[in-house]
Protein backbone atom coordinates (compact mmCIF):
# COMPACT_ATOMS: atom_id res chain seq x y z
CA UNK A 1 0.00 0.00 0.00
CA UNK A 2 1.61 3.27 -1.05
CA UNK A 3 1.51 6.25 1.27
CA UNK A 4 1.56 10.00 0.77
CA UNK A 5 4.23 11.79 2.78
CA UNK A 6 3.51 15.49 3.20
CA UNK A 7 6.25 18.06 3.64
CA UNK A 8 5.33 21.64 4.49
CA UNK A 9 8.05 24.15 3.61
CA UNK A 10 5.89 27.26 3.44
CA UNK A 11 7.93 30.33 4.39
CA UNK A 12 11.21 28.40 4.21
CA UNK A 13 14.08 29.72 2.14
CA UNK A 14 16.88 28.14 0.09
CA UNK A 15 17.99 25.35 0.43
CA UNK A 16 15.37 24.01 2.87
CA UNK A 17 12.55 22.98 0.48
CA UNK A 18 15.02 21.06 -1.70
CA UNK A 19 16.73 19.44 1.29
CA UNK A 20 13.47 18.52 3.03
CA UNK A 21 12.17 16.98 -0.20
CA UNK A 22 15.30 14.87 -0.44
CA UNK A 23 15.00 13.77 3.18
CA UNK A 24 11.40 12.72 2.62
CA UNK A 25 12.30 10.84 -0.57
CA UNK A 26 15.03 8.96 1.28
CA UNK A 27 12.56 7.87 3.93
CA UNK A 28 9.81 6.98 1.45
CA UNK A 29 9.36 3.46 0.15
CA UNK A 30 9.21 2.75 -3.58
CA UNK A 31 5.75 3.72 -4.82
CA UNK A 32 5.09 6.26 -2.05
CA UNK A 33 4.21 9.81 -3.02
CA UNK A 34 6.03 12.80 -1.51
CA UNK A 35 3.93 15.95 -1.55
CA UNK A 36 5.87 19.15 -0.89
CA UNK A 37 4.27 22.52 -0.33
CA UNK A 38 6.20 25.76 -0.24
CA UNK A 39 6.44 29.42 -1.15
CA UNK A 40 10.12 29.74 -2.16
CA UNK A 41 9.90 30.59 -5.87
CA UNK A 42 13.09 28.95 -7.17
CA UNK A 43 12.31 25.68 -5.41
CA UNK A 44 9.18 25.31 -7.51
CA UNK A 45 11.33 24.70 -10.57
CA UNK A 46 14.33 23.13 -8.81
CA UNK A 47 12.49 20.37 -6.94
CA UNK A 48 11.18 18.90 -10.23
CA UNK A 49 14.73 19.25 -11.64
CA UNK A 50 16.05 17.24 -8.69
CA UNK A 51 13.33 14.59 -9.08
CA UNK A 52 14.12 14.15 -12.76
CA UNK A 53 17.85 13.96 -12.04
CA UNK A 54 17.12 11.09 -9.65
CA UNK A 55 14.91 9.38 -12.24
CA UNK A 56 11.70 9.96 -10.28
CA UNK A 57 8.32 10.84 -11.69
CA UNK A 58 6.83 14.29 -11.00
CA UNK A 59 3.09 13.63 -10.82
CA UNK A 60 2.02 17.26 -10.80
CA UNK A 61 2.86 20.82 -9.87
CA UNK A 62 0.00 23.04 -8.76
CA UNK A 63 -0.15 26.64 -7.63
CA UNK A 64 -2.37 28.70 -5.40
CA UNK A 65 -1.13 32.28 -5.34
CA UNK A 66 2.54 32.12 -4.36
CA UNK A 67 2.03 28.75 -2.72
CA UNK A 68 2.97 25.71 -4.78
CA UNK A 69 2.54 21.98 -4.30
CA UNK A 70 4.66 19.36 -6.03
CA UNK A 71 3.93 15.64 -5.95
CA UNK A 72 6.70 13.15 -6.68
CA UNK A 73 6.47 9.39 -6.83
CA UNK A 74 9.36 7.56 -5.21
Amino acid at each position, binding site marked *: MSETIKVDCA*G*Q*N*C*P*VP*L*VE*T*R*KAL*RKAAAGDVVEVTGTHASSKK*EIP*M*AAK*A*MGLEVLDVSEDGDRWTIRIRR
Partner: protein
Amino acid sequence: MAEKATIVVQSGEFDKLYSALIIANGALAMGMEASMFFTFWGLQRLRKGQLDKGPLSKMHMLGLGKWMVKRRMKKANAVSLDRMLEDYVELGGKLMACDMTMEIMGIKREDLRDDLITDYCAVGSYIQEARESTITLFI
Protein backbone atom coordinates in the same frame (compact mmCIF):
# COMPACT_ATOMS: atom_id res chain seq x y z
CA MET B 1 27.35 5.18 -8.90
CA ALA B 2 25.90 8.62 -8.21
CA GLU B 3 27.63 11.77 -9.43
CA LYS B 4 29.72 13.52 -6.81
CA ALA B 5 30.52 17.05 -5.64
CA THR B 6 33.78 17.64 -3.78
CA ILE B 7 34.43 20.91 -1.97
CA VAL B 8 37.62 22.08 -0.30
CA VAL B 9 36.68 24.41 2.55
CA GLN B 10 39.86 26.37 3.17
CA SER B 11 38.15 29.58 4.34
CA GLY B 12 36.78 30.07 7.80
CA GLU B 13 34.62 33.09 7.09
CA PHE B 14 30.97 32.85 7.96
CA ASP B 15 29.65 33.73 4.49
CA LYS B 16 32.04 31.39 2.68
CA LEU B 17 31.14 28.46 4.88
CA TYR B 18 27.50 29.34 4.29
CA SER B 19 27.99 29.14 0.52
CA ALA B 20 29.91 25.88 0.81
CA LEU B 21 27.19 24.22 2.91
CA ILE B 22 24.37 25.47 0.69
CA ILE B 23 26.09 24.03 -2.39
CA ALA B 24 26.93 20.78 -0.63
CA ASN B 25 23.36 20.35 0.60
CA GLY B 26 22.04 21.25 -2.83
CA ALA B 27 24.21 18.55 -4.38
CA LEU B 28 22.93 15.93 -1.93
CA ALA B 29 19.35 17.09 -2.38
CA MET B 30 19.67 16.71 -6.13
CA GLY B 31 20.82 13.14 -5.83
CA MET B 32 24.60 13.56 -5.89
CA GLU B 33 27.10 12.38 -3.34
CA ALA B 34 29.11 15.08 -1.56
CA SER B 35 32.43 15.38 0.25
CA MET B 36 33.74 18.44 2.05
CA PHE B 37 37.44 18.70 2.93
CA PHE B 38 38.15 21.08 5.78
CA THR B 39 41.61 22.56 5.84
CA PHE B 40 43.38 25.62 7.31
CA TRP B 41 40.89 28.30 8.35
CA GLY B 42 38.01 26.11 7.30
CA LEU B 43 38.99 23.44 9.79
CA GLN B 44 38.75 25.99 12.63
CA ARG B 45 35.02 25.99 12.04
CA LEU B 46 34.79 22.30 12.89
CA ARG B 47 36.12 23.00 16.39
CA LYS B 48 33.40 22.50 18.95
CA GLY B 49 31.14 25.56 19.18
CA GLN B 50 32.93 27.40 16.37
CA LEU B 51 30.77 26.68 13.33
CA ASP B 52 29.21 30.14 13.02
CA LYS B 53 31.98 32.07 14.73
CA GLY B 54 33.83 33.15 11.58
CA PRO B 55 33.89 36.81 10.51
CA LEU B 56 32.32 38.03 7.26
CA SER B 57 34.78 38.00 4.35
CA LYS B 58 33.76 41.58 3.53
CA MET B 59 32.23 44.39 5.57
CA HIS B 60 32.68 42.57 8.86
CA MET B 61 33.19 45.95 10.57
CA LEU B 62 34.29 44.51 13.92
CA GLY B 63 31.23 42.32 14.00
CA LEU B 64 28.63 44.95 13.14
CA GLY B 65 28.36 43.78 9.53
CA LYS B 66 27.96 40.18 10.62
CA TRP B 67 25.33 41.14 13.17
CA MET B 68 23.39 42.93 10.41
CA VAL B 69 23.71 40.03 7.99
CA LYS B 70 22.56 37.55 10.63
CA ARG B 71 19.58 39.76 11.41
CA ARG B 72 18.66 39.95 7.73
CA MET B 73 19.09 36.19 7.42
CA LYS B 74 16.70 35.63 10.28
CA LYS B 75 14.17 37.94 8.65
CA ALA B 76 14.53 36.05 5.34
CA ASN B 77 14.08 32.77 7.24
CA ALA B 78 17.49 31.56 6.07
CA VAL B 79 18.64 28.55 8.09
CA SER B 80 21.60 28.45 10.46
CA LEU B 81 24.95 26.85 9.68
CA ASP B 82 24.23 24.31 12.43
CA ARG B 83 21.02 23.22 10.78
CA MET B 84 22.73 22.94 7.39
CA LEU B 85 25.54 20.86 8.81
CA GLU B 86 23.01 18.53 10.49
CA ASP B 87 21.10 18.18 7.21
CA TYR B 88 24.34 17.55 5.35
CA VAL B 89 25.31 14.69 7.63
CA GLU B 90 21.75 13.29 7.65
CA LEU B 91 21.74 13.18 3.84
CA GLY B 92 24.98 11.20 3.84
CA GLY B 93 27.50 13.97 3.13
CA LYS B 94 31.09 13.21 4.11
CA LEU B 95 33.19 15.54 6.29
CA MET B 96 36.94 15.12 6.00
CA ALA B 97 39.42 16.85 8.29
CA CYS B 98 42.95 17.66 7.10
CA ASP B 99 45.39 16.05 9.51
CA MET B 100 48.31 18.29 8.58
CA THR B 101 46.30 21.39 9.52
CA MET B 102 45.59 19.72 12.85
CA GLU B 103 49.29 19.20 13.40
CA ILE B 104 50.31 22.71 12.31
CA MET B 105 47.63 24.43 14.33
CA GLY B 106 47.77 22.11 17.32
CA ILE B 107 44.18 20.88 16.96
CA LYS B 108 43.32 17.56 18.58
CA ARG B 109 40.48 15.23 17.66
CA GLU B 110 38.77 16.01 20.93
CA ASP B 111 38.73 19.71 19.96
CA LEU B 112 36.73 18.90 16.83
CA ARG B 113 33.17 17.73 16.11
CA ASP B 114 34.50 14.21 16.04
CA ASP B 115 31.00 12.68 16.00
CA LEU B 116 30.34 14.26 12.59
CA ILE B 117 33.73 13.82 10.94
CA THR B 118 33.89 10.89 8.53
CA ASP B 119 37.64 10.72 8.19
CA TYR B 120 40.95 12.37 9.11
CA CYS B 121 43.08 12.44 6.01
CA ALA B 122 45.43 14.21 3.61
CA VAL B 123 45.61 15.35 0.01
CA GLY B 124 45.59 11.84 -1.43
CA SER B 125 42.09 11.21 -0.12
CA TYR B 126 40.91 14.52 -1.55
CA ILE B 127 42.32 13.69 -4.99
CA GLN B 128 40.82 10.24 -4.85
CA GLU B 129 37.38 11.78 -4.25
CA ALA B 130 37.91 14.67 -6.68
CA ARG B 131 38.98 12.44 -9.56
CA GLU B 132 35.58 10.82 -9.57
CA SER B 133 33.65 14.07 -9.02
CA THR B 134 31.77 16.06 -11.62
CA ILE B 135 31.84 19.18 -9.41
CA THR B 136 34.92 20.29 -7.50
CA LEU B 137 35.19 23.63 -5.72
CA PHE B 138 37.74 25.41 -3.56
CA ILE B 139 36.12 27.82 -1.15
